[in-house]
């Protein structure tokens, strides 16, 4: 299926989903970029910056496509820099402050594993443009999964302190993972047309992959999840997103049209 073949209602729904993918990667990428110059060691500092660049690059692809689907002449930069927090559709887990290295790694592991399943499915999307972005991105995601899961193993099964700290991160992050497998009302039409996959059907696959690594890392999945009032896909964010965007957007907002 090509862009011009989409019905208006499909376009609107797809715009929302592309913002979810683009914003989640943008916000996560920005959180990773905050490590630049602060990594635990030079090599890992560079590794985290690489992950950040991958995420921001993927975000640019999704937001560019979102702009084309929306058809209101907004490009990826307009969408990234000229929207407020309430208009962002990222998953809540992506916007949480970066915490310590273990927290960043645990979040990356949980989210990358999720995105790996999303992209694997999107490679079969009936919408050509989305399919080709997914095909391109999956290689990067595979590396993100590898890098973060190897670190989860080492921190979990490392020293007493590293174990305790990454377990605490897992306990704090776990409650934000359910949101990843929910859909908005408008996603339904996209699922019916095979443009996207119904991620609620893949929760168990994700859980299986994640549990395996967590178990091997001698960590424990928390038993209870606290109910959350946030829902990134509806624009209901934590207070952290606004602060992050203020920093991320200040340059293009203070100097409209600035170029390198």
């Amino acid at each position, binding site marked *: 299926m090509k862009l011009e073949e989409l019905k208006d209602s499909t376009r609107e729904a797809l715009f929302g989903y592309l913002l979810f993918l683009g914003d989640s990667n943008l916000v996560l990428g920005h959180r990773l970029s905050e490590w630049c110059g602060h990594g635990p*060691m*030079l*090599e*890992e500092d*560079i*590794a985290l910056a*690489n992950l950040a660049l991958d995420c921001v690059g993927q975000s640019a692809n999704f937001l560019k496509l979102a702009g084309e689907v929306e058809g209101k002449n907004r490009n990826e930069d307009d969408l990234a820099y000229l929207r407020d927090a309430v208009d962002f559709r990222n998953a809540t887990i992506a916007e949480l402050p970066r915490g310590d290295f273990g927290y960043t790694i645990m979040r990356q592991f949980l989210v990358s594993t999720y995105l790996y399943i999303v992209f694997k499915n999107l490679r079969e999307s009936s919408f050509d443009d989305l399919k080709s972005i997914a095909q391109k991105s999956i290689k990067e995601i595979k*590396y993100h999964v*590898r*890098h973060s899961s*190897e*670190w989860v193993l*080492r921190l979990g099964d490392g020293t007493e302190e590293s174990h305790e700290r990454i377990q605490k991160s897992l306990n704090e992050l776990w409650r934000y993972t359910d949101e990843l497998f929910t859909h908005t009302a408008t996603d339904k039409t996209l699922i019916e047309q095979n443009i996207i996959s119904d991620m609620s059907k893949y929760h168990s696959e994700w859980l299986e992959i994640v549990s395996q690594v967590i178990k091997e890392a001698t960590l424990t999945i928390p038993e209870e999840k606290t109910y959350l009032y946030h829902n990134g896909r509806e624009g209901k964010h934590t207070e952290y997103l606004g602060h992050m965007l203020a920093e991320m957007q200040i340059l293009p907002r203070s100097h409209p049209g600035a170029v390198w």
Partner: protein
Amino acid sequence: MSDNEQLPVWEVFMQQKNGGPHQHVGNVHAADAEIALQNARDVYARRGGNGSIWVVPLETIYASGSDDEAPFFDPSDDKAYRHPNFYRVPKAVKNL
């Protein structure tokens, strides 16, 4: 981190194309081989590359020193017959 707290050093060798030699490009710090390999990828191949990467623990490399220079390398200097200068290399042979 002070000097003695640094993680072990791994020397990094990268291959530019399949079948080609692995050439030394630098080193990384890491506690074990898998992370050393990932660090090598992130530090030396982040702007592209292909073929493969080797990481080798520095302490496993047994090297010649400056004292060895003369006995190791000088004897070949004045003996032209040690060099394969008088053979024609067949056109089909690449990477020689």
